[in-house]
């Protein structure tokens, strides 16, 4: 693999790759604002300037500059090497690039930082980007100067509503055009653009349009400063109080990787941020998916119920024991859930099929919905493929309604409450539902056991391409909820059966044939798909 | 200035000195835990080293590393005015099995420091004359300075101990009774029916 030298360190690169991209893949950070690994490079922020040593035999390209000579008390002309933007310069074999080790580069970064902050409003106390802002980070690392300008900073429109989800602040904007390029290149809807010139520059929405569509949250995500904020998250939480868990979005079968940010003091999830995964979602997530973090708290079942009345867990299991005593195994039906993890579904199979002996499998899940060619999948369940692997012969829920109607199935153990078709007829059967969210199957249940949502337990989900991904535990279980597989384990215990697999580790060993959880972690990003 | 100490240690103990380093003016040697006592004895008794003052002993918890607990000892030589930092890494990922030999016999001052390290971090010292908790009360559960000990954990309330456990009589001794400390007029107290 060809390599070039960055501060003396050899960096391998692919043909045509830029210096900053190759360095980023190796974990070396060259400061930048406008460059993004998933977008084109406009080289307008000038923060990534590096000094490239001239080819042997070639004359170095220099610029004439004026330098203040303190001893003589006058300006004098000197030369400085012309620095190149590393986001736009392709790497070449044997190239010698100086980044942190060059005095000129350090001075250039300091000066670029000064220009960027020249007219910046003193908004840190009220800006949502505070704590994850590149201006703050780079000032401390590369700037460390105090303000020299004595004039009033330029004022621009603040709090401009761009659309149903995004608010724009012109004064904070550094004109990196990441939002403009994202909408044009990734969302394929070039609705944003820059107007005016010089220090009156601002971003605006095309006349007659709003910033809408399915990917507006990503403009906030790519914005390196607090210029673009989402109406959903602004002023809700300070980021330094939030902890992060690596989660998998439950919105559809794409299974985008996400960071779930939650506040452990209040045990609340506050937002999603996309997590890089070259194979699944590259760097992005859709708006609907970004908002599914709310499902960690909305519409949750947190208490056990017997026949619609709140009950204690012990009462619920007592009732289950009496209702299921002596039931022939042919009358028991199992409903797997495409919205629950592989571990939950596996335990249902273990308890229902292996232990109780049922052979009537059905699968439930949310109905299909909108799809597009970018990220959104029509199947709005995160683990359909996983259920297919666990119970390949599972029939649609409609078949269960028919079987209950004909009397073939009298007792049902259902995982998950989502249903795409009518389920009223199931009231004729004894139904134990283990679910996290309200839904039709929970309404018709005889016994309802509250399960933890995806955010409160570690779970494996298989996406539409067959990739197994693990979503980590973030929150503590709400109310009386517990992981669904634990409910099923206790149900087997209440019915008098012993199941040998009693911990998540053991379930995973069974499901994955001994593979460790680490083997499921998403692969690091290498290059974005075209 | 203490580089000479590190050199002598390496020369004498060879591979039992796992690594040495020098930073910010301090010299550090990481010692194989089984050789802890012999290294300490050597440091005390060799006349060119003469480490007669035990300065400090503590443990640092690195939960992502195995072995997890790092016992750090600082020594000083009053006549020769040089210092050394010794480290030993003990304990598995759950901080079990963290044991070292006690060096109380070499420096009596290590007695309380080893008790404190046991109390706070859970490192046992074999051969210590009296290894019990020093800063915490005897019924305390856990070792607070381990990183996995949550800072907001509450401890169970301790019931009054029996006389056998306390090693002394509980309650007041005769002739002091329940009205001890009350004003002179003992009739000011309500009397029960049976006196």
């Amino acid at each position, binding site marked *: 693999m060809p390599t070039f030298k960055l501060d003396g360190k050899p960096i391998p690169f692919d043909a045509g790759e830029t210096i900053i991209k190759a360095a980023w893949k190796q974990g070396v950070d060259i400061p930048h604002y406008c460059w993004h690994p998933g977008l084109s490079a406009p080289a307008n922020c000038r923060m990534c300037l590096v000094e490239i040593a001239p080819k042997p035999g070639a004359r170095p390209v220099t610029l004439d500059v004026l330098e203040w000579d303190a001893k003589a008390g006058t300006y004098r002309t000197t030369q400085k090497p012309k620095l190149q933007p590393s986001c736009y310069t392709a790497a070449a074999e044997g190239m010698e690039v100086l980044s942190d080790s060059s005095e000129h580069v350090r001075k250039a970064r300091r000066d670029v930082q000064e220009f960027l*902050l020249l007219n*910046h*409003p*003193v908004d*840190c*106390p009220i800006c949502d980007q*505070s*704590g994850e802002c590149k*201006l*703050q980070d780079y*000032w*401390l690392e590369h*700037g*460390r*100067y*105090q*303000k020299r300008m004595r004039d009033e900073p330029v004022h621009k429109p603040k709090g401009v509503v761009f659309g149903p989800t995004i608010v724009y602040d012109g004064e904070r904007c550094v004109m990196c055009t990441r939002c403009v390029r994202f909408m044009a290149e990734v969302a394929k809807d070039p609705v944003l653009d820059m107007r005016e010139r010089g220090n009156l520059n601002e971003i605006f929405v095309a006349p007659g349009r709003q910033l809408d569509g399915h990917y507006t949250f990503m403009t906030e995500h790519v914005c390196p400063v607090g210029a673009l904020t989402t109406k959903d998250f602004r002023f809700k939480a300070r980021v*330094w109080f939030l902890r992060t868990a690596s989660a998998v979005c439950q919105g559809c079968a794409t299974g985008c990787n996400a960071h779930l940010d939650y506040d452990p003091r209040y045990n609340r999830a506050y937002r999603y941020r996309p997590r890089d995964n070259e194979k699944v979602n590259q760097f992005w997530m859709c708006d609907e998916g970004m908002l599914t973090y709310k499902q960690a708290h909305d519409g949750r079942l947190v208490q056990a119920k017997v026949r619609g009345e709140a009950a204690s867990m012990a009462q619920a299991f007592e009732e289950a024991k009496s209702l299921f005593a002596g039931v022939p195994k042919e009358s028991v039906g199992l409903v797997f859930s495409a919205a629950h993890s592989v571990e939950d579904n596996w335990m249902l199979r273990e308890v229902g099929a292996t232990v109780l002996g049922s052979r009537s499998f059905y699968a439930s899940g949310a109905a299909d919905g909108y799809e597009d060619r970018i990220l959104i999948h029509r199947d709005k369940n995160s683990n359909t493929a996983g259920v297919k692997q666990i119970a390949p012969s599972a029939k649609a829920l409609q078949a269960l309604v028919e079987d209950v109607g004909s009397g073939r199935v009298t007792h049902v153990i259902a995982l998950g409450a989502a249903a795409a078709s009518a389920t009223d007829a199931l009231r004729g059967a004894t139904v134990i539902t283990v679910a996290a969210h309200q839904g039709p199957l929970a309404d018709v249940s005889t016994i309802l056991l509250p399960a933890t949502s995806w955010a409160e337990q570690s779970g494996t989900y298989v996406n539409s391409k067959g990739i197994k991904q693990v979503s980590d535990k973030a929150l503590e279980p709400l109310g009386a909820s517990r992981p669904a597989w634990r409910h099923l384990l206790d149900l087997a215990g209440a019915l008098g059966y012993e199941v040998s697999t009693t911990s998540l580790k053991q379930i995973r060993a069974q499901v994955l044939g001994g593979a460790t959880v680490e083997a499921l972690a998403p692969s690091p990003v290498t290059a974005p798909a075209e | 200035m203490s580089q000479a100490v590190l050199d002598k240690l390496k020369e004498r103990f060879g591979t039992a000195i796992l690594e040495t380093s020098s*930073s*910010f*003016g*301090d010299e*550090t040697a990481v010692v194989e835990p089984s050789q802890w006592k012999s290294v300490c004895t050597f440091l005390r008794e060799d006349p060119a080293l003469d480490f*007669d*003052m*035990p*300065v*400090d002993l*503590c443990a*640092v*918890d690195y939960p992502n590393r195995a072995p997890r607990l790092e016992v*750090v000892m*600082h020594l000083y030589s*009053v006549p020769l*005015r040089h*210092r050394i*930092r010794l480290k030993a890494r003990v304990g598995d990922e759950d901080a079990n099995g963290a044991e070292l030999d006690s060096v109380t016999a070499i*420096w*009596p*001052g*290590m*007695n*309380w*420091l080893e008790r*404190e390290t046991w109390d*706070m971090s859970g490192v046992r010292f074999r051969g210590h004359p009296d290894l019990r*908790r*020093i*800063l*915490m*009360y005897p019924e305390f559960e856990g070792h*607070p*300075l381990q*990183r996995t*000990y949550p*800072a907001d954990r509450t401890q169970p309330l301790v019931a009054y101990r029996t006389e056998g456990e306390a*090693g*002394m009589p509980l309650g007041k001794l005769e002739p002091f009774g329940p009205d001890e400390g009350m004003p002179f007029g003992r009739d000011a107290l309500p009397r029960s029916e049976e006196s």
Partner: protein
Amino acid sequence: MEPVYAELEEGELELPAEPMHLNMGPSHPAMHGTVRIVLDLSGETIVRADVQVGYLHRGFEKMCERGTWAQVFPYVDRLNYVSPMLNNIGYALAVEKLCGLAVPERCQWYRTILGELARLSDHLTCNGAMAMELGAFTPFLWLVKAREMVWDILEEETGARLTHSFGRIGGMANPPSADFKGLCRATLPKILGLVEEGEKMLLKNRIFIDRLENVGRISGADATALGWTGPCLRSTGVAYDVRKAHPYLKYDEVDFDIPVGTKGDTLDRFLVRLGEIRQSIRIINQALERMADDGPISCDDPRFVLPEKDGVYTTIEATIQHFKLIMEGAKVPKGEVYSYTEGGNGELGYYLVSDGTGTPYRVRIRPPCFQITGGLSKLLEGRMLSDIVPTFGALNMIGGECDH
């Protein structure tokens, strides 16, 4: 045991065979702070003394791992709370060692002066309290009056008599007040006068000398092996003072002596502290001459030192600097360091482990009086009950420091 009023023959009186347990409980006027000594007494002689500390343990080391580097200053204040400035300065020096910062010269003199004032406060308290516990209440009041004068200076400078939280990484919180030098120069002779009066009262008193002389003797070798440092070690004849052996701040540019005892008994410790009071006054006088009247107090490294407040409210750069230092903490480079200074009781050491972030990974405080109190049981064995109070008093165990 028979009731005392019964008629008994001479030979019939039974004396108890086992030692008597006496509990000098944690709540006791002479148990400085809170220390419990469980005594086994045979008559008045102490057979065994089990010194139990930990009643003032507040979990500093754990709490330091949950804030930023600058938030440790209030914690270290409350270690040796009669000389908090020495703790502050010691910790600031430790972090600066790890960061590679050098504070301006004016700050070094300022720290030296404030540190020595704190040392005065510590020794005045120890000697005064020891005298009071032996019954001499008046010298206690005189020495505490002198201590109040020291605290008046510190209150003028820092805003608080005790627990100033005045040290900062890279300097001090505020520059010296306008009349700092004048105030010090006016107060020091008064302090010396009060100390001399107290000395005259005590050192010619037969009872006082008898209660202290040859009580609690320890040899230099034993004290060193126990890890003793400071005035208690110097009373045995071992002339180890961190300020002379490993000078820091401006101690190598001032003249002072180290008072050293001979016998290592309680009287020597009392006298060593009195000598150190005089040496501290000597150091302060020289430092007041040498300290500049203007100049920066904190180094101007934006990675560690807060900006001026008017800049914070008006410019974005100062706001960012303020924000980063307060919310994320000063990012101390990765590594570990053991830094030691002469605290009121001896070598006050800080062993800091940094993982490169703004939160300390481990702050280990090496309290000098922890080691010293560890030797108390050895000093007491074989002595009489009434020797406990002066012996323990002379050790100057400060509960906050011992139990951290």
